[in-house]
Structure formats: structure tokens, C-alpha cells
């Protein structure tokens, strides 16, 4: 039974895809539904803001790379210089802490003393803005004028699991949508052969590093349609799960097989009229194209030697942070909207001097290399780069404090991170903490403010950008008012 003249197929299919999507996006007032509608209809969606999407702003960045340091690096040893503390080495902060009213984790709450642990690392001022940066990050120091360092980040969580969920999904509760999936949902992809949100897992090199767990919920789509979830590019085996054809299926044969599949599906479609059939065929074709485009993407053979001068020699080794940073550049270059690099091992409860140094060594040069590389390619101006963890660390020592060794517990009230690139005012330092790096004393930036700012830079008004789920307009920035951090915008 043929219900449709074949010339109708495409228009029909497009229409139906739109209608199906409309069910996903059914919405009235805030105009959510239209968000991705245009991308559905086949436009490649550079940026053209559409008047029909009330949340759209003029974007400052088209794409973003988020370098996620899982475990929470110490602000006191990297960016938040406190020269006054050296003289107070080992001072017991027990009584002072009691006045602060902050929760202590189960790991240090029962310590008899809370000896003050100054950073044992040297700091120096860099760049025209004179930002203080620790000796652990010599390459980062070189690009100070590209960076905006926020020293006044704040979070609500005191443990890794909820804190990571808050940074990467906007909520400590399960079931929410991740930052990348929101961007994918709102902005769509710039390259139909690649996912719009890619996750890279970079290995840490030190065997001593204290490693925290992560989970798929940090890049999941939550209540958003599943295709907006981050796709993990893997450092072992197939770069994308199941990407490579089974052994013994040569490319030409796969093509024959898919041609037959397409013809058979087309007959089904003619008989049944379900446009999902046509969509499926298109997805098989996209899978076929991905089988070519992703290995090309993952193949670093044609990178010039100069690349390794930027990112470091480790960039030649698959799975290292350096190679992930390079991969991130290759991904955004090809139109991936959002790349997230997870690097674990930043949880220095003990042996901080040894382990933090090793962690920094993993990332320092490659981060610099990435920013320089983007700049050289003219992409830094519309690519946002973010570098940070999930909370800060305590000024007091966890465990035994010696002249050369200490550890630091979790601290939610302040931490540091940096941003660079599209729309960011380089060479600036935002916010300030007290002499203990314990409380923010100027320009606090909550996680939700960071989210509002990232969305703003990407051309999204966080207050008007939502998704109806369980009767509520779910938003990345949640219900507590969030503000765009104007002071860091170029």
C-alpha cells in the first residue's frame, strides 16, 4: 500500500519531525518550544538569533570548553594568594572556626586542633593586571592577560557528589539536566555529523592522586530529550561507543548493507507512513558519516610539530590531559558546541604539596597551549574556556601539619576559577576573600551566577530559558535569583 507520492517524503518527514518535537517543547509563555524548532527544520544554525525566541541574546561565544577539575583544587595554593598567613603557621584555628558557623566534613570535624597551613608555594604577580599566580602554574601565569580569575566563587555543597552535581547540573538533586545538555538543547549543533555536546575523560598521571568518582549524571540530559546528553569520547577502544564496524565488515560492504537497509525501510515507510522510519534511515546515514568523521577527528597524525610545542609532548599520548585539550580544540573547530574535559585527582586531603604539583603539571601547559592555539586560529574571541573545580579547600590543615607537608579539607564558601575567551575581559581578577581565604568579602559569585554568565555569553537569557517538566519551568539557574557577572564581561 503506497500512501504517499515519493516527492512528498522529505517535506512530510520534516513536518512530522517538527510536530513530534513540538510535543517535546510544548510550551506557551516563555517561548521555549521554539528553541530548537528551527534547528529541526534543517538550518545549520550559526547564531542567527530569532525574534521568536524570547530568551535569545546576541552571543559573545559560539562554543565553550569546560575544564572540570574533579576533586576541588586548592585556591590557597593556586590563585588566592594570602601572604599574611606564613607568619601564622600552625596557629590553631579551632576557636576562630567556631565563630564561623560553617559545617565541617566528617573527615575533620573531630580533629583536636585545626592548625593554619599557609601555602608552601611561591606566588608572583603576572601580566599587566598583576594577578598573583602560584609557581605550580608557570604556563598559566604566562597567559594571565587572557584570563579572568574569579576568586570569589561560592557553592552550597560540602561534599564531592552534591557539589559536582551543582556545578555541572545546577542542582544538588538527581534528575536535572547538565550545563552542556542545556546548551545543546538551546543552541543545537553547528555540525550535523558530530554531537553538540562531547565529554572527554583525561587521565591523571600521578598514582598518588586522590581520585573522586564522577558519573553520567554530570553530563546527562535529565528531563531534556536524551539526545542532548553529552557523548563521551573515549580514550581507549572506539572513540565513540560502538563506532567501529565489527571486524570483517569492510567499508564498502557496510555501504551495501546500509543501501539495502534504506531501500527496505523506504518500502516500510511507503506502506505504513510513519515518518520515524525516515528519521531512522537518516540516523543510520549520520552514523555512517560519523564513522568517517570521528576517526579523522581523533587522528592526530596530521597535527604539525608546532602543536606539541604548545600542548606538550604528552599530547601525543591518547587519554592524557594534553591530548584531551588538543582534542577539545579539534572538536570545537569542527562545530561541537560544548566540550567538557573531566580530569580527576584534585582531592588533596593529605600530601597536598606532592599531589597538587603533579595534578598541575598534568594540566598547566596544555591549558596554556589550548588558549594560545585558539587565539592563533582566531577562535578565542568566540570560544569560552572555563577552568575550575567544585569547591574550595580549608585554610587549616587536615591531618598532620609539618614544614613541608599538609592536606586541606573541603570548603564551600570560596574557591577560584578562571575563564577566558569569548566575551570575557582578560587580565582581570574578580572578587576577593578575607585574609584566611575563608569568606568572600567582595563580589561573591555563586555557581548559579556562573551559570547565568555562561548562558549570557552563549546568547541565552537564563531567566527566560527553560523547559517545562513536572509542571515547572525548569531552569539551569533554578529558583533562587541568579545574576550575570557583568564585571567580567568584555
Amino acid at each position: 500500500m503506497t500512501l504517499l507520492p515519493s516527492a512528498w517524503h522529505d517535506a512530510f518527514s520534516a513536518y512530522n519531525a517538527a510536530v513530534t518535537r513540538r510535543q517535546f517543547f510544548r510550551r506557551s509563555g516563555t517561548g521555549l518550544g521554539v528553541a530548537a524548532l528551527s534547528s529541526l527544520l534543517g538550518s545549520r544554525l550559526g547564531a542567527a538569533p530569532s525574534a521568536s525566541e524570547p530568551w535569545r541574546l546576541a552571543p559573545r561565544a559560539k562554543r565553550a570548553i569546560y575544564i572540570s577539575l574533579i576533586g576541588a583544587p586548592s585556591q590557597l595554593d593556586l590563585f588566592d594568594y594570602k601572604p599574611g598567613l606564613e607568619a601564622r603557621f600552625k596557629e590553631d584555628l579551632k576557636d576562630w572556626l567556631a565563630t564561623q558557623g560553617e559545617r565541617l566534613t566528617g573527615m575533620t570535624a573531630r580533629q583536636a586542633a585545626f592548625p593554619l597551613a599557609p601555602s608552601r608555594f611561591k606566588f608572583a604577580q603576572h601580566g599587566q593586571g598583576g594577578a598573583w599566580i602560584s609557581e605550580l602554574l608557570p604556563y598559566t601565569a604566562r597567559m594571565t592577560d587572557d584570563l579572568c580569575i574569579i576568586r570569589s566563587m561560592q557553592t552550597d555543597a560540602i561534599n564531592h557528589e552534591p557539589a559536582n552535581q551543582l556545578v555541572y547540573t545546577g542542582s544538588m538533586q538527581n534528575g536535572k539536566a547538565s550545563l552542556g545538555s542545556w546548551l545543546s538543547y538551546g543552541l543545537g549543533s553547528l555540525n550535523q555529523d558530530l554531537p553538540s555536546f562531547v565529554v572527554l575523560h583525561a587521565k591523571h598521571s600521578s598514582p598518588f592522586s586522590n581520585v573522586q568518582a564522577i558519573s553520567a549524571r554530570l553530563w546527562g540530559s535529565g528531563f531534556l530529550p536524551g539526545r542532548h546528553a553529552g557523548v563521551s569520547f573515549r580514550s581507549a577502544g572506539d572513540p565513540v561507543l560502538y563506532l567501529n564496524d565489527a571486524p570483517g565488515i569492510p567499508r564498502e560492504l557496510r555501504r551495501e548493507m546500509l543501501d539495502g537497509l534504506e531501500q527496505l525501510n523506504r518500502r516500510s515507510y511507503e506502506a505504513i507512513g510513519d515518518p520515524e522510519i525516515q528519521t531512522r534511515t537518516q540516523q543510520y546515514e549520520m552514523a555512517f558519516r560519523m564513522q568517517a568523521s570521528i576517526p579523522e577527528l581523533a587522528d592526530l597524525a596530521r597535527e604539525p610539530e608546532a602543536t606539541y610545542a604548545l600542548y606538550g609532548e604528552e599530547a601525543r599520548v591518547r587519554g592524557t590531559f594534553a591530548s584531551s585539550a588538543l582534542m577539545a580544540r579539534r572538536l570545537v573547530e569542527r562545530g561541537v558546541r560544548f566540550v567538557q574535559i573531566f580530569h580527576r585527582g584534585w582531592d588533596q586531603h593529605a600530601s597536598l604539596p606532592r599531589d597538587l604539583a603533579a595534578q598541575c603539571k598534568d594540566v598547566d601547559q596544555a591549558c596554556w597551549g589550548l588558549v594560545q592555539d585558539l587565539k592563533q586560529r582566531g577562535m578565542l574571541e568566540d570560544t569560552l574556556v572555563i577552568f575550575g573545580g567544585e569547591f574550595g579547600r580549608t585554610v587549616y590543615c587536615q591531618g598532620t601539619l609539618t614544614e613541608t607537608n599538609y592536606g586541606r579539607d573541603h570548603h564551600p564558601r570560596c574557591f577560584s576559577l578562571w575563564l577566558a575567551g569569548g566575551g570575557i575581559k582578560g587580565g582581570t581578577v574578580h572578587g576577593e576573600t578575607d585574609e584566611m581565604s575563608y569568606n568572600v568579602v567582595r563580589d561573591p559569585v555563586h555557581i548559579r551566577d556562573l551559570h547565568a554568565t555562561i548562558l549570557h555569553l552563549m546568547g541565552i537569557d537564563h531567566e527566560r530559558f527553560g523547559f517545562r517538566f513536572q509542571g515547572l519551568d525548569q531552569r539551569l539557574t533554578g529558583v533562587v535569583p541568579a545574576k550575570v557577572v557583568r564585571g567580567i564581561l568584555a
Partner: protein
Amino acid sequence: MAFPLRPLAAAAAFFPLSVWAASAPPVSYNDQIQPILAENCFLCHGPDSSTRKAKLRLDRAEFATKPRGDGDLEPAIVPGDPARSPLIERLKSKDPEEVMPPPESHKTVRPEEVALLERWIAEGARYEEHWSFLPVRTAAAPAAAVGGRNPIDAFIAQRLEREGLRPSAEETPARLLRRAALDLTGLPPTPAELAAFAADQAPGAYERAVDRMLASEPSAEHFARQWLDAVRYADTHGIHIDNYRSIWPYRDWVIRAFRDNMPFDRFTVEQVAGDLLPGATLAQQVASGFNRCLPTTSEGGAIAEEYEAIYAKDRVETVATVWLGLTLGCAACHDHKFDPVSAKDFYAFAAFFRNNTMPAMDGNRYDTPPTLFVPAAGDEARWSELQALLKGMREEEKSRATAAEADFKAWLDQSPRLAVPPADHAVRRHEPLVAAEGTPDAVAGPYGLAPEIGRADRLAGPPVPWLRGESSSTGAFVRVEGKPSGPLFSSRSAGEKGPGWEVFLEEGKVGLFIADGTGRVQVRNVGGALAPGAWRHVLVSFDTTALRSRTVEVFVDGKMVVNSSVSAFLPTDIRPTEGLRLGTRAGVSAWEGITGGRVWAQDLRVSRRGYLAADLKEFTEELEAFAALEVALAERTAAHRRSLRRHYLAAVDGPALAIAARLRPVLAEVDGLRSRGGLTLVMEEKKDSEPFAHILNRGEYSQPGEKVGANTPAVLPPLAADAPRNRLGLARWLVDPVNPLTARVTMNRLWQHLFGTGLVESAGDFGVTGARPSHPELLDWLARRFIESGWDHRAMVRLLVTSAAYRQSAAVTPALLERDPGNRLLARGPRFRLDAEQIRDQALAASGLLVSRLGGPPVRPYQPEGIWEEVAMKESTTRYYQADTGDGLYRRSLYTLWKRTAPPPAMDILNAPSREVTCVRRDRTNTPLQALVTLNDPLFIEASRQLAARALTGTGSFDARLDEITLRLLARRLAAEERGIVRRTLEAALARYAREPAAAAALLAVGSSPVPAGVAAAELAAWTLVASQVLNLDESLCK
């Protein structure tokens, strides 16, 4: 082609404005007004008192039409007089200071909506209770429809007629059978079932097939699998270290409940409160594991009170979503924004779940208490017998111990020596190592002369492997002098990569070596010293059955001195090729054995059990007895006598030894049963307190407010006066026939399962902002019928799948598609992509790979490398994934081990939920990553090969072979044109594989099931590709 860029509010999608204007029946509050108000007004003028503006509440008549505040503010709505109603005035205002909704809300009420509100007010502004809170109506079905098969069709036809649509013709019998089989069993029909169905021309053939399928075990597995989404079942704790947890007996309980068609009210009560039922059976307690399916943590810094609040909220959200279709969790921080549910209601509900003995920190244990042991199916009776038998024999032991006192004294008087205690039931190898008198270099040991080791190669037994899922320990009494270095117990090859393991000494310290032979596992740790000059007991325990983070530990006198370090959960088995040696190592000459000191050993035991420190008393007490013997009779203390008595009974006393000998086979049998059964997490109420909770300000655990007792939400019918105020009371209230929600919500989910979308699209939200039912009378009729059937779930499934609506062809015209893209009106049959598990199970079943067995511990099918390692912590017992061999690869997908932080990837890609929160409605996407799964996942390649092998077993023609494949996957034979297409693929593949035998061999090597002998490789490979092609057809992937 135009379509509205600004869709109407939820309800409007089903009640087009044009309909309202045309015939002008009275305006319905629930259908027409409430959606407008909820969308635009309730955020500030709704149930939430904390954000209410201007003291105005519009969601209930008693507030909206009466003076506000202290009576000094005029009512917003004057019934009968829209012109005098400030509501309308504000909506129409042009003044940005006055207009509602305010501009900053980015909401606007359209003129036609304002007109509707005016009409409604003119007609008297009649409010209605929210539809889903109203009692379930008992209305009769409309008059039977032409072509209808049961009352469902009358409801469907009534609506279709109103819409000017007609139902479709019935699906062809074979395709209908396939649809029903996939919906009822999750598996495709077999060719034999198709043939039998085709042959059964008598009336009622379809109904008989439905009954047969519904009564099958696969059907129970299929319905259970869906329930597991709702209860967020998984096999790991879910947060942080994410270790394995043992709760699969609960999963099996769910399967058996569906197999036995347990009435849904009982199904509910036993899960929510099985532990509280008077005289709760083992099964009912297992069912209470529903309450233990939530994700839990044991993160180092986690704060117990915080997690107790999180757990209670999770449980409230799960119960509320699954049974009530309410988003109660929204009221955790503030009164609900839209539904009449206050924060107090939420915490009163949470109180039901805050009075149990589960610890806030799961301890990263697989057996976080409270737990129960559940024997395997068929073992229950024997398990009880054995328990009774054991109890009896333990009593015998005890009475002999008392009676033996005189004999014990007599033995003591003889100046005795210790005897070697007989090996217990778990010992695989026992070497007493008692040297003959006059043996050179021997010294006195606990049981006589003990030989020196490390002077000559001493093979003590065959290799001792450490295998995943098993336990093994090796121990002996050891005495050293000096600071010896060298192997103590060694079952390894000489090289640094092993394979094997060894307990060694390094300058008197105890060390542990483990290597798997590949370099992936390479442990060499050195721990505490073995003090010289006295007998010690040294034992190495390997234990993966306890699923602790630390797998290998070496104990000296019951104290752990060295272990395999935190990263010990071994990714691979340790399979030594060298036998167990004492004091020497394979491949190393004897004089290199022990250096720097001397070592003696006695009583070597290799056991198939693992040890914790507390278990090692049996050995240390032997050493105490040995020491006690050295003490003169007169100087012995009570402790000395105690250890000697223990030894006497364990090794000397004839009657006690006889009892022990009879006990051994019983214990061995208990061990056997234990390994077949499983522990499961259960719920247990605190006995000494009543359920209560504090209202947490803004949901913060650290800001407790008013204390509230357990109660159900005020807007719903109350708990019975005599109901216990605990989970049992709650459970019975959920299935009380006056509860307006449970039956509706459950029937709606069943409808969704069969038709793709529920009658209420938002299956988890029946609240004010949820969707409205497309067929409200039908939903009520089904709910009523469900209750009146005695909550007979299977009867309701049968009713739905035997309706004409279900049996329709799914073919659709463009006009109908445009009119009803989501098929909510049911003018055609349901057709959509199968769930992840169905797709995999279909491939297993069609290919013959499927291993059908109900229940049991979770299995590990193929999974790409690194999925777990990428996210797991070093300590996690689910850090390394090792696929099973044999049956475990081919079980139905609901048995796959579900790690919450890294769910099985193919399932994840095909939209299975992560099982971190309740899920009553899966996403159903259509993506290229999904195509890659079914094209390339080794399981699907292997299934294609097996399917091809099936096709090639006959000497059949091309057509017969192809039929073998398509009948199993599509339940039909291909048309001539389609055959031509497949033939072209086959011929291309045949040519290619004939030219490239290596490619054929590579393809056939995928998967661990054997390749049939006597089939030409090129032919089998080519047909494998064809089978994969058919398996990837949209028609195969959809029902």
C-alpha cells in the same frame, strides 16, 4: 507548511478554542480555566503561601471570590459580573504598573483566553476540584461501537466520531501477534507460535494466544522490568564509591509477583510495608526492599542528617510519582506552586519513611543492614530444614560441652599434648606438618615437632587460584628466628609478572605479592613484622564474595598486617600455574628459599572460605592453648583452662568430634545453599518511636521547624481513623478504593506501555500543571474496573490488548498524521520503537542465544572496556568490569548488573533510565548512536551470526533461509521486491568474503558462542551481514 509557533497551554491542545466558541456549552473550570490560571497566575496567586502576592489566591473559590486579607480588599472575582471583577480589569489593563501578568514574568494571556475567563465569570465562576482529586466516576461505557470488541472501543469511538475520524482496519494476524508478544512478553513470537496462531481458525484464537503469553515467565520478566524503572532498582549504591549492593532477591520477588498475577493492592502493600504486616513472611519482608532501592552514600565527609532528609525526599517522590502521579517533592522547600499540597503535607508524608533502622551511611557494604538471606527458588524448604538441623546439632554440641567436663579434667591430668583439629568442611587441603621424632632442624610446635621450611623445595599442593566470585585462604602456624627473607606461602611463577600470588618475608616483615600474568594486576606490598621467637598464625585471605573494597588481606594472629591496598578489587582472576609451595618459590633453587633467618611451619590449611579478623579466633585460641600447656597445672588461670577446654572439645573429645563430623556435611550443604541464594536489603521499622518529621525550612536539613506526625496530604481522602500511622497505614491508604489516584495512575501507565502515550500524557504528573486526560471517562472506567476486578492487573492487560483499538493497523495517512501526530485519538494502532531491553532480548531470542532462567544474581554481558574504570573510584567494587563467560552473556537484559553511575552503555544509549530517580516514562529518541549499537555491539553481531547459522542449517533455498530470519524478527516473509534488495546485499557480501576469507573469519570470530562446523565461512559471514541488515530494519526495532 504552517503550524503554530506558540503552542497553546497544555489543555488547549485537546480542546481547540474553535470548539469552545462554536457550540458554547458552559465553560469548564477544569478543562478550560484552570490551565490558563495555572500557567499565568498561580506562581504568585496559588497554593504557595510564601510567594503569594497581594494576599490573593486564585486557585480556590473560597479565596478568589471572597474579600481578601482581613476583609478589606475586594475579591478578585465577582461571580456573574466580569465587568466588576478586578481579575479581568487587570488582565486587560494597558498600564505596565497595573497589567497582569506583570511584564517581567514574560507571560501574556491572549485575548481569546481573557474572553473565556469573562464568560466563565459571567456564568457564575464555578470552580471545580482538580479533576484527578475527584472520586473515580462509575459511569457506564457508551453504547457499543460498530466494530468494537469491548467497552474501551466504545469510548474511543465516541471521541473519534466527535472528531470526524474513523478507526483503522485490523492489523494482519501475524503482525498483530508480534505486537502482542513484544508488549506482553518482551520477546518476538517464534515461527512455531506464528504457525500455530495461523492454524487456529476458531473464534477467540487471539484471546487464547494472549492468555498463553500472559501466563508465561517471560511475561512476568517483561512487566517486572518496567516496574524496576519506577522503583529505581539498581545493583549499586549509586553515590560516590558506588559499590555493589545485594538486592536482587527483591527484583526476583517482583518477577514472581507478576508471574503469580498478585493483585495490585497486595503488590503495593507488600512493597511499601511488607515488613510491617503481622507475621510477615520471608517473601513479604523481601518485598519491603522496595524502600531500599534508593541511591545511598557513604562519602567520607557526608553528613548523616543531610542524607536522611535526602533519602526521605527520594522515597516521597518515588511513592508519590508511582502511585499518586503527584510531584510532592516540589513541596519540600515551599508549598507546592500549583497543587494544593503544602510543605507540611510533604513532611507529614516524609515522616512515614523516617522511622526505620537503615543507617544514613551505607558503609559501602553490599549488605547494608537490615538484610535477610533468601534461599534460591526450590531451596526454601531445605534451607528451613537445615536451619532446624543446625540448631539441633549446635545444642548437642553445647550439651556435650557441659557433659564433657569430667573427661576434660581426666585429659588434663594426663599431661597431654595438643592434637591436630580435624579440617572443617571448607578446607580443601590440610597438611599437618608434624615431623617425625629426630627430624633434623625440627622444633616443637603446637602439635609436635614442626619442620623447618625454606631449605628444600616443598610442594604443599596444587596451584591455588584466586577467582572472581570465590574465596580462598591459606594459613599455617609459623615461627621465625632472625630477620628472614624469602617466600612463605607461594603459588606463583618466578617472573615479576607471575601469574600467581605469594606471602613472603622481607627482613622479618610480611609481604604480599599478586600478579595476573599480564601486568594489569601487579601488587607488591610489605607490612608489619613477624616477631621472632614464638609461634604465630599467618593467614592470607582472598574474598570476593563479601564484596568489600579490600579483597586480599594477610593476618598475623588475627591482625591484618598487609593487604592488597585499596585498589585491590582485582580486574582479573589470578590463575597460578605453579603449585603451592612452602618456604620456596617455583623456579628458584632451594638454597635461595629463606635467607637472613630461619622459618618453621605447621598445620597448613587451604580453605575455600575467606576470613575477616574476627573469624580467626579459632587459630589464635589454639596458640593460647599451646601456651597454656606450658604453664604448670597449679598456675593455670581460668583463661588457660578455657582455651584448653576449647581445644579438647575441638580436637580430642570423641563424642564432640563425632558431632562435628556429622556437622561437617550439613555446613557444607548450608554453604552450597548460601551460594545459590542471596542476601537482600529489607526495611525495618524502629520499634521504640513513632514516625515523625520536622518541616525543614526551605528544605534545608539544618533548619528544622515544626514537628509533624505521619499523615497523607490534606487534599486527598484521609487515612482511616483506625489505620496505623506508619508505612502500613500509608500502603493500605494508597490502595483504598476511595483514593482517587492510584487506580487512575496505574491504568494510565499500563495504557502508556501499550499505546505509547498515556491517556494522561504526563504519566508522573496528575497535578494541576500536568496534562489532562484525552479520554477522561475511559480513564475512570478503567480505574473503576481495575478496582472492582480486585486489582487484577493481568485482566486489565488482557482487556486492553483485546480491544479493537489495540488491534488496529498502524498505517497512517498524511492527513491523519497531521491531525493526530501522537496518535492520541487512536484512529490507528500503536507503533513505536522497542525499549532497549526488548531490542537486545529480541536479538537473543531470535538467534537462539537466549538463556531462559528466572531470577538470580545479576549477570555481566559484553560491555566495551573502560566504562566503569572511567568514572569509578579506586576503592570501588564496581571499578573493573569483567564479562561473564557462558550463560551470563545471554540472559534477558533485566538481569544485567546495573551500576548507577555507569549504566550498561547500550541500554543507556537506547534511553534506559539511569535508575537514580523514579522513572515512569522513558524518553524515546532516534539517534545515530543507537544505530551504532545495533550495527556494531558484539552481542548484535553474534546474534546475527547465530541467526544466520539457523538459516543455514536446512539445505534450503535463498528464500527459505531468508524466511527463517525474517519470520523470527518480523513475523513475516518478505515480499518479492524486498527479497531482491536483500539478495543484492547477500551477493555483494558473498563475493567479498569469497575473495577475503580473513574478513569472513574475523566477522565470525565475534562473540563467544561456537561457530557451527561444516558451514562455509564465506557463506555464513555473508548471511550474518544479511541477518544484521534485517535486525536493523526499522520494522525490527519497532513493535
